């Protein structure tokens, strides 16, 4: 594939292109792009040292795993000396003096950051319309209404749009309830959310700590595996970082399945879906059938509670995580006569509507008298959802679902928060359970828009998960469709 990391590395190795030329090519394209998928582009001067060092490594024949690869970074990762805003007004002047664990690993492996990807404010949104820097446009168009600007999904909407339009080779995103997988699906690319605890959260602006997980948005499953190799490391500075043994996720990714694979399809997920969505699942079944894969119907008992559970727990954590943005030490301060006025003005003007809504919901469900009814109850349901998944994984290797219930929609179309939240109905349960999930593009809708399917694996089984996703990717052959 032309834009795959291995293809680009081959070109760099074979001196068909230099690291600098590669950077220029992507930078120029990004600069002229109208998708608004970056809220900050990094001029070559900022990266020139890294570019030269990378070039030298190619010339010396010892390039690093991601050497010279231009990456986009969701603007939720703190990048040392580079403005980091979470696409919020309140952080619009914030430049951290530290590098997040994940972006440091990416730099250590030779990649070069082309810019910070626009995203929903504090990663709260499913359409990338809540950004202080304005909405991101999906590079795809509805062939029946080509004048409409469509959303790229969210919250890693800038990341997905940038990879889809080819303004970066891959992007690092975060996923709390679907924020990698859903935009990947709506933009026709690959998005991987690893098991919670795989990739350190240190230095990522926190939304909901028990759910946030970093992961790559890429052109191919192979690229996702390559990047996962760089970022999936234990970190002592993140208490929830798992110290399980990491594997080489790229090695053997295209190997033939050596044993029978059983995939569960939750019938309750497919009850009210459109023909377009249903056919993604059917096509996948057909594509994998010849590869020793057996499909079985499975049924969750907890699906209907997942969204409400998520929309209690995530805002609860967010209401507390966002308390530090008070205008006192950094970020935008709006003056006031009293201390309370400074807080009130800074936060009222600094946060957008969706963020404010979630802070209010979060504060409410944690408040005295409501805690037991909401937060504690939601924690119990979360446990049941985890158990529900484990019950199903007792019988199957993977679970296959649509990634989203619909194709990309028009910017401004889903203004009602509840219908927006429903976009994450297939991704949220996985997040609550902490399981890994990957979305790959599976086909086009009748409107000619990309749709995705999601494979869900058991805890820390990313290796197997990437293998089945790579197989499905090959068989579905989306990029040639």
């Amino acid at each position, binding site marked *: 594939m032309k834009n795959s990391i291995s293809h680009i590395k081959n070109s760099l190795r074979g001196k068909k292109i230099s690291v600098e030329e590669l950077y220029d090519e992507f930078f120029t394209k990004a600069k002229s792009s109208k998708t608004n998928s970056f809220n900050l582009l990094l001029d070559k001067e900022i990266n020139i040292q890294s570019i030269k060092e990378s070039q030298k490594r190619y010339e010396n024949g010892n390039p690093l795993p991601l050497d010279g690869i231009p990456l986009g970074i969701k603007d939720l*990762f703190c990048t040392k000396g580079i403005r980091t805003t979470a696409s919020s007004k309140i*952080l619009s002047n914030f430049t951290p003096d530290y590098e997040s664990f994940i972006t440091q690993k990416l730099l250590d492996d030779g990649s070069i950051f082309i810019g910070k990807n626009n995203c929903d404010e504090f990663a709260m949104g499913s359409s990338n319309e809540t950004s202080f820097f304005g909405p991101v446009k999906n590079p795809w168009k509805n062939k029946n209404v080509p004048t409409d600007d469509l959303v790229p999904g969210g919250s890693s909407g800038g990341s997905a749009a940038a990879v889809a339009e080819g303004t970066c080779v891959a992007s690092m995103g975060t996923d709390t309830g679907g924020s990698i997988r859903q935009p990947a699906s709506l933009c026709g690319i690959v998005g991987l959310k690893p098991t919670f605890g795989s990739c350190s959260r240190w*230095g990522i602006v926190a939304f909901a700590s028990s759910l946030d997980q970093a992961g790559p948005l890429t052109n191919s499953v192979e690229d996702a595996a390559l990047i996962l190799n760089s970022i999936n490391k234990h970190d002592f500075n993140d208490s929830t970082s798992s110290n399980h043994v990491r594997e080489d996720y790229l090695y053997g990714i295209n190997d033939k399945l050596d044993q029978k694979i059983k995939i569960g399809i939750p019938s309750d997920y497919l009850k009210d879906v459109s023909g377009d969505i249903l056919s993604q699942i059917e096509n996948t079944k057909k594509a994998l059938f010849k590869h020793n894969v057996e499909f079985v119907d499975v049924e969750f008992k907890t699906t209907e509670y997942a969204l409400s559970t998520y929309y209690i727990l995530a805002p609860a954590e967010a209401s507390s995580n966002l*308390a530090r943005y008070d205008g006192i030490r950094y970020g935008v301060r709006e003056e006031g006569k009293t201390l309370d006025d400074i807080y009130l003005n800074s936060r009222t003007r600094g946060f957008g509507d969706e963020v404010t809504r979630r802070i209010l919901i979060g504060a409410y469900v944690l408040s005295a008298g409501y805690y037991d009814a909401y937060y504690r109850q939601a924690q119990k349901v979360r446990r049941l959802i985890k158990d529900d998944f484990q019950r199903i994984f007792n019988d199957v290797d993977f679970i296959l679902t649509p990634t989203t219930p619909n194709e990309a929609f028009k910017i401004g179309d889903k203004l009602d928060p509840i219908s927006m939240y429903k976009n994450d109905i297939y991704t949220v349960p996985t997040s609550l359970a902490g399981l890994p999930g990957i979305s790959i593009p599976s086909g086009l809708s009748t409107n000619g828009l990309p749709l995705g399917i999601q494979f869900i694996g058991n805890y820390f089984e990313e290796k197997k998960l990437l293998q089945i996703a790579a197989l499905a990717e090959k068989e579905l052959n989306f990029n040639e469709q």
Partner: protein
Amino acid sequence: MSNNWEMVIGLEVHAQLNTSSKLFSSSPNQFGSEPNENVNFIDSGMPGMLPVMNFACIEMAIKTGFALNFNINKYSVFERKNYFYPDLPQGYQISQFEFPILTEGFINIDNPDNQKKIRIERAHLEQDAGKSIHDIDPKFSFIDLNRVGTPLLEIVSYPDLSSAEEVVSYMSSLRQVLMYIDVCDGNMQEGSLRADVNLSVRHKGGELGTRCEIKNLNSFKFIRQAIEYEFKRQIDVIESGGKIEQNTMLFDTSTGETRAMRSKEFSHDYRYFPDPDLLPVNLTQDLIDKVKTLVGELPQAKLDKFIKDYNVDKDIAKIITAEKQNAILFEKMISETDVKPKFIAAWLVGDIFAFIKENNLEVSSLNEKTKEITDLLKLVSDDVISNKAGKEILPRVLNGQGNPSDIVKELGLEQVSDSGELEKIIDESLIGEEENISKFQGGSDRVLGYFVGKCLKATKGKGNPKLINKILLERLKK
């Protein structure tokens, strides 16, 4: 004010743990640095920063658990206590709420005529906040985040205390124990140990009244003053027909008065919930057993030992066990000499402590000089030199100006304990004293003192007074 009122008091004591770094960050945990010097990205609440538990704090909590007879809970949870204040950069304090590490402990305190058991409901780990400074500038407040994240153990008693004296006794007993097990430096002036006092009044034996909480008292004097003032205030309110409102009070150290800071209506809703950045604390029995071996001997056990095994008077033993470093010095001296512990104890709390106080020294500074001190005490207890001579040369020994026997030689202070020599001197001193001798024989004991003095003078003070006394009596009774 009628006499049948009594006060009911519970205490929340905040003890800063003397770890080298903070509870959830690697910044130094030390007092007295320049403002905002001990602050890293975690302490200042930067975006994306995460807490990592300092395990030393857990070990200290377990030690405290053993020392204060607590149940040590194998499962405890850090939660977030949410509120806004500029000296709280995260916008929440990480504390333990529903599942504290220690529950149901107690400590015995000494009342004038009995011991009283004070029950302790719980103790939990939490972060200290920073400091807001409002009195440097008329327009601006200043924030010092050095204290942010300092580990605290909050020790919450039941309302078992019923006087200012008991509160002070409880607080000093806690302080003593925490210092013994080396988890807190006990420095109240620097805020290492502070108390919130919950006080209500009632008619003796009657129903509990509404309580008020007096915040942040950091000296025994202030605790006593605040309690006495608040006790009177509450009684006055009730006796003049009013009702006590459940308020949080501040104690004004300049006026000695308490005043309401905020009422319950305006109390915060802290929205506690388990901190998702931290895992629950799961303790293994192995760890608990290991920490148990580090607790060491507690003050009460030491006191009992000093009284029973070393025959030291209770009052003196109490002075020695009051602080761990006293006891360490004492035990070191005992181990290095065959001089009786009781004799050493008397010297320790007498002249040696006086010297330390006069020269503003740490007791522990004498740990290096115990050999010289016990050599000196041996000379005194063996009657080589007089008690008086011992006192005279003690400062030189403590100042390290030579070893005792050299000093004694140099100053010629050995006692004359040769009875032949003393007999000669005594016989000489009795010449021409027929009148006084007959007075003595007629029953006047006072004359004996006169003769001892005369003999001592004749020996230039070096005669062994005990021996002189003995020989004199023999001579005079003849």
